[in-house]
């Protein structure tokens, strides 16, 4: 996967960045949560993409928040020039097929410095 699919020699990092209104987080009480619609820009495999989704942001303590997607995101190989890599993986693993669509699910915890 590292070599054929993600080509980590060339593209060691994927970044997802999105902006969240800092006031929104500040105004959350501890244990309160908010549902926010976001547009995240994704830099993966040398391709910049955009993902529109909904996130739950919950304040777990004064210095800790949890960010979680609501339902899985579907990422397709074509969006990030990953198709050739998938083909190569398929051949290497001697499989009939590898789906070019992948569901992605995440939860992130952020600590205030």
């Amino acid at each position, binding site marked *: 996967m590292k070599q054929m699919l993600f080509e980590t020699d060339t593209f060691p990092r994927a970044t997802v960045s999105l902006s969240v209104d800092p006031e929104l987080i500040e105004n959350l009480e*501890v244990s309160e949560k908010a549902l926010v619609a976001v547009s995240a820009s994704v830099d993966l495999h040398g391709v910049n993409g955009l993902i529109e989704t909904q996130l739950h942001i*919950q304040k777990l303590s004064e210095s800790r928040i949890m960010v979680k997607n609501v339902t899985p995101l*579907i990422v397709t*190989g074509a969006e990030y020039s990953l198709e050739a890599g998938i083909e190569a993986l398929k051949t290497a693993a001697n499989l009939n097929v590898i789906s070019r669509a*992948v*569901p992605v699910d995440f939860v992130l915890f952020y600590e205030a410095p």
Partner: protein
Amino acid sequence: MKNLLKIYALSLGFSITGAASAAELCSVNYQTQSDWGGGAQQRVTFTNNGPALNNWNFSWSFVGNETLMSFWNVPSLSQSGKSVTASHSGSVASGGSYSFDFIVNNPSTTLPAEFFLNGINCKTQVGGSSLSSSTTSSQSSSSVASSAAQTSSSVSSAASGASAAWVLDKADSTFSFVTVKKEHVAEVHRFTALDATIDENGWATLAVDLNSVATNIDIRDVRMRDILFETSFLPTLYYRVALDLDAIDAMPVGSTQVQNLNGKLTLHGVTADVGAEVTVVKTSTSDVSVFSKRPVLIGASTFDLTGGVESLRVVASLSSIGNTVPVYFSLELSANSNPSVTAIAVPGAPAAPATLTASFSEGLVDLDWADSSNNETGFLIRRKDASGFWTTIDGVANNVKTFEDILLELGVYDYKIIALNGSMPSNPSPIARVEATDPPDDDPVLVGKSHYESMCAGCHGSNAQGVANIPALNTRRDGAVLESMINTIVNTMPATSPGSCDRACAEAIVAFLDATYWEETGPELSCENPINYGSRQLRLLTRREYQNTINALLGTGFVAESLPGDELVGTFVNNTQKAVTLGTYDQYLMTAEKAAKWSAERNFANVVSCNNSFNQECANKFVNDFMPKAFRRPLDNSEKTIYTAMANGSKTNGDVKAGIQLALEGVLSSPAFIYRHEIGEKNPNNGSLASDAFELTSYEMATWLAYTYTGAPPDAQLWDKAVNGRLRDTNEIRLETQRLVNSAVFKQRLGEYVNAWLATDSLSNVSKDPSVFPNVNFTALIPLFQQELSLFFNDVMLNPQGKFSTLYDANYTYVNGPLAQHYGISGVSGDQFVKVPTTNRGGILANGGFMARWADAREPSPIRRAVRVRGLMLCQDVKDPPANVGNDRDQLAQIHKDELAKPTTTNRRRFELVTSMDSCQSCHQYIINPLGFGLEDFDSVGNPRTIDSMGNVVDASGVLYAPQAWDNSYANTAHQFTGVRDLSQIMAGLYEAQRCVPQTLFRYTMGIGVEDSWRQHGDYVVLDEQEANAYACEIEDLRKTMMDKSPRNMLEEMGVMDTVRFRKPWARASSM
């Protein structure tokens, strides 16, 4: 509150308390928490006096006929016969206790006495030193315990499950899964109805209503429910797992913990171990969030879902659908402080059917299995064919132990049976294998069922109910379209691979639909008799018929104005039960006298042609030529003698003209003239006729046909056939009915008929408030409403391609300029009626006349509309309101006078208020109000509306309960609808609405109702049971003719009905 301490040893006559009990393997506290007669909630607590337990089971036997219904606080509790076993993979420390709860039906007054832990009797000694000393019997405490054990069931508090320690925040929780189709297309789906609780012991239960699957595509939702999850049998998914509550309680707020859960997933008739790695976040002191740390992978084959996935693939024409599905969940749980909120009660798993045998013969497989459980709600039958997929063939009710399957393809098949308690399955039965070595007899229904399930159900629904814009197939199709339905299937179906269902296949599918969904739901009829006999009867001419007869015999111009009034039965004129009395005979005599005088003044023009020479020959012509037409039969010899003696002038001083006038007066007042005769004669040549039966003569048949189809005496052609004795032949009669149905006068009669049926012929009985309808000249509209109905009804009933359903769901009507203007239809002017397409009106329900007829001056009358829909269109006998209803209504009006006076109170609400008393509710609650309220979207002058006369928004949501009968089964059938057009769509598919069409026509033509009684003068004429049955059979035949062929064909076939041609002297009772 009964709280029975039941230490097993007491029932054995031992008194063992305190430390002594520790000497035994386990001590047991079996309590009835509450008992409500038919069921009880019980709790078992055992204390483990042996070594620490891991992976234990605990069992006992019920004393009576208890049936385990549900349980909680333990992962598994199953019943087999009287034996009950709880099992748990967790631990119980030495000296520790464990409690669990359950609900039983049929609780016994005696509680179980003997318990086993891991198969070892609880009273087994485990080395306590005091054991030997404890065997001292204490009779007194024993008897106390025994009597306490014989508990009564007087406690009546309702059942409640264990309190839930944590409950789900449903709005914020999600449960999703991703499917991949065509290898590279992934889609996220959700279930929207989740419930989850964690009970006090840490048992977490997730229950997902599989019907709530939401995929963003309606038809896919339906297919997933129907084909994949099979929610009609298996609506709920359960996941049960033990959580460490103490650990969760101990978590600091804001902290995170990962737990590996090993739970049991119950899905699609299979319970299997499923692990889940979850993240637990303590989001506040009273909230936790539990979500999948990584997706849980569910393999279709584990849960017998592979066959369903393959069926989905075929019906959706996909190249592939993935068989492993990642599931994502995020559950938000809150600590529960409300003790009445209980943990989810999971139904107990039934014991698996212990045996299964399958035997094959000529395409059919007979399955027999052992019913080893007594808490099952039904059984699933699963089959595996060469594809290797298990598919559910069918489900059967509890206690059923056999099933017959049909195998269309040769090969080897495996079967298994799963007992179900709700969605909770047993383990599968042993597998039974058959080899299909020869094909089935070609029973088209069974073959069609198999074809339907494999080719049609994916789009049209597993119950042919239709999906989204794909039509339902579960209502009877008119005969005219059956052939085209078969052709459509052959040429275009299944849509994913047209041509794969040949003609035999298509015919089998139609046969299956016919037998399964178009089945007659009407009364059980026994129509085995070779002939359905009508009643020998005389029918007094109606005023209209009398006038038409006079016109035909004497020529037009004389108006018979002083005849007695007609009888009205239902909404139709019907003189069948009416007779001439001494009082009314004078009126007939006087009318005859005037008519004879009137004719004489015209020298008997039309009657007899004497060229003004009134001689003997003329008198003979009167008797021989005229009189048979007036009597509608040949004269017998004595009649000839009597009338000749009158006509020839011998009673009028030789004045032949005066004699003919006298004879004519006699003829027109004679019973032979003023009654229609349906008496018949014996026919020894007809061997199938019963010995006490009579066959109508050709003359009587001519009379019946003439008055029925034209309202007048026989015309020349009918008379000619009567004279030549040709109307005892079915084909000859049919030729006549076909001719008469085509006549102009019949069209007019049909128009009058439909207006009489719907009582729109008396539209002038209602008036409309000009302040509400300032621009409506209602009086001028009345004949236009009537003409609209007449033209529409003619169109449906006489068009050779006409269909019953059009009577209700028509998308067209007939209007002229003024009516079009009233309806807001543009582009029509002048007085000529034209056919126009419509979207918001059409049919005999959604039209101006009917809606206006059953409405008040300002607002509709939901009550009268509902009663007429039931009475006139569904042929239900709607009872009169109770005698004291006026008082109650006045009282209610007084109670609610403030609300009734408010302009914001809708018409619907007003009627709700004035029928809210118990005395009203027995009829209004289900039978009247929900039906009438659904018709509120048509105003009082027959136009669709969204706002009522006060400016309030109209709520036209309604329910048609119990179209089939006026009884207490109304809850069984409920058709929800919104508005008149919506109800029309329902009516178009209702058996009862179909049947009511010939039933009403039958009464109209025969003068007798199929009902065993009907109202007349407040009196009921009660038909002989056989007579009523004969009529019901005839009506059913007519209905089938209407549906399988056409309404027109039904009209034509009425003349050859047995009940018309063959008669018996049925006995009638008259009861007050």
